[in-house]
């Protein structure tokens, strides 16, 4: 009698440990890390409308940082974003809204009208892609430099030295992915795949499934 009990108990413990191991090893659920808070902002877009981080709450947002006079060999981050936008047309995110945002760190030159022309020239879907900038260079430095942790510096000739990067933010305003231009090729595949992973988590992470998703976060089951 006693022996049966010991068997039963150890069996249950063993199965539990096995289940945890299986979860960690095979990672049936993969997630993107919650890296840090994205900064707050209220900036003007290419149509002269205000866009704030609060307007984007509940949406997946992919940010990039550049200026409109960025010509090769200046890194063409907009082309990657354009490819992402085209790929997203074929991707089913299950109704999770997504917005692309290009933040210009050159407010003196990049007025809304200039950004409008820049967007037109790129021939992108402007309903989904906003081009924004601010009027106060100090505030902009706080948002981009400190908040998004993106380096940029004006050069004497009016051009900029900057870190070409894409930042993925979830609907809570939390940074979930950072991608450096052309260090992990192909950028586009990885970004689009990660957007899919994030959209899936947003859709499915409810009720009992939320437990499994939180376990995936706890065990660092991060999508490659």
């Amino acid at each position, binding site marked *: 009698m006693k022996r049966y009990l010991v068997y039963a108990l150890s069996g249950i413990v063993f199965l539990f440990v096995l289940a945890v191991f299986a979860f960690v090893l095979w990672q049936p659920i993969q997630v993107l890390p919650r890296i840090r*808070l994205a900064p707050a902002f209220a900036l003007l877009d290419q149509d002269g409308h205000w866009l704030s981080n*609060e307007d984007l709450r509940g949406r997946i947002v992919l940010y990039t940082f550049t200026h409109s006079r960025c010509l090769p060999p200046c890194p063409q981050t907009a082309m990657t974003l354009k490819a992402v936008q085209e790929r997203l047309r074929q991707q089913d995110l299950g109704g999770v809204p997504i917005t692309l945002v290009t933040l210009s760190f050159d407010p003196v030159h990049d007025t809304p009208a200039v950004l409008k022309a820049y967007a037109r020239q790129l021939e992108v879907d402007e309903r989904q892609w906003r081009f924004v900038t601010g009027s106060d260079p100090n505030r902009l430095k706080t948002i981009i430099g400190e908040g998004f942790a993106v380096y940029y510096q004006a050069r004497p000739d009016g051009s900029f030295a900057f870190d070409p990067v894409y930042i993925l933010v979830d609907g809570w305003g*939390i940074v979930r992915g950072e991608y450096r231009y052309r260090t992990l090729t192909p950028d586009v595949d990885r970004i689009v795949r990660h957007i899919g992973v994030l959209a899936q988590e947003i859709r499915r992470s409810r009720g009992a499934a939320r437990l499994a998703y939180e376990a995936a976060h706890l065990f660092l089951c991060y999508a490659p």
Partner: protein
Amino acid sequence: MVRTAVLLVLTLFVIGVAGCWRPYTFHGMVMQSPQPAPDFTLMTHQGQPLRLSDLRGRVVVLYFGYTFCPDVCPATLSEWAKVMRLLGDKADQVQLLMITVDPERDTPAKMADYVRHFDPRFIGLSGSVDEIARIATLYGIYYRKNEQEGKDYLVDHTATQTVVDKDGYIKLIFPFSATSDEIFADLRYILR
């Protein structure tokens, strides 16, 4: 026969216990990657400077609001006042800081009156317009003056609450909709 039945009942009991035992799931949004909370120094409602990093060893709750706030801020602060009561003795390890998003109107005296109304342990903080803007930006808190025709202006602002753990890392984000019971459960777990 009896032995099998007893064994079956015991097994089911053990499975039941194992099923109930699971890792704690937070109600607030958890930040796994440790992000150091951006440091700042602001003036308390008692006119003394307070640096966030001086509060290491206590759980700090950052709430951005203003005293003219018609509904959102009182609702949130009432919930937190309830949380403080529920925490009992452990409330000593929790410090709520209300940072004004309306530094032009929120004088120390006004802030003192306001926070005392909810819980005397709450601290109201203010600073220069630029300093507040910088801090709010880094914590992802949006705010903007909303001018009303012929009336006092309102300030639209993000209503989330940020929990900084005892080591100074951002740990949890609570939405406006979080109830005192949910917040209490999460804090009790952090302070266990």
